[in-house]
């Protein structure tokens, strides 16, 4: 389970960071989908269902925290150029 949590946290942060880079969206979505399936399959093989569920929850959580962190930081500190 812990392996899934660790990898999920990292993966969630990576997904959250993709949004800011100007690029075509379909490529992002495809990369995220393929990466998630690969990681999910690998974790499922090693840690079974518990690991997979932990991976998904941790990834969503990390993505959410990253999103809130960025928007909160922007509201509080950002000064116009």
């Amino acid at each position, binding site marked *: *389970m*812990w*392996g*899934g*949590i*660790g*990898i999920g*946290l*990292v993966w969630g*942060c*990576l997904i*959250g*960071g*993709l*949004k*800011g*880079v*100007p*690029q075509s969206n379909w*490529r*992002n979505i495809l*990369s995220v989908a*393929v*990466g998630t399936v*690969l*990681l999910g399959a*690998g*974790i499922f093989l*090693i*840690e079974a269902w518990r690991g997979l569920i932990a991976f998904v929850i941790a990834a969503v959580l990390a993505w959410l925290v990253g*999103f809130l962190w*960025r*928007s909160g*930081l*922007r509201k509080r*500190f*950002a*000064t*116009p*150029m």
Partner: protein
Amino acid sequence: MSDRTIILWGAAGFGFLIGWYVYYINRYRKGDVQLSDLVTLIGIIGGGGITALFEAKTAMFGAYGLGLATGFFSYFVVLIFMVGMTKNFGVDWFLDGRRKKVADDEFIPEYVNQTTSAMDAGGGANAINR
């Protein structure tokens, strides 16, 4: 310290190194998501697969995963620490990459990599004004 403890610390340390490196790769990524990013992911799982070959595979994979997350976020914590220490960067750098101009008696060598985006959630500085 027992052999098992050393093995678990070894797996965690291995994960830490890879986590640190993943942050580094993501930070200096050249804009678009590329195949190399997927190869990196496979490397992450591959690293976990190596630890799974050993006897206590679940515990080692867990230690690897925790080490991975710790290494990844440690890079970020060190970044926050260094930005706090210097006067050349402020918290705005995390949002839109803003920084002070290089002074007259300073220069940035050409071989130094530039980050593509700090922690921009879309729109950059213009989004702040909306």
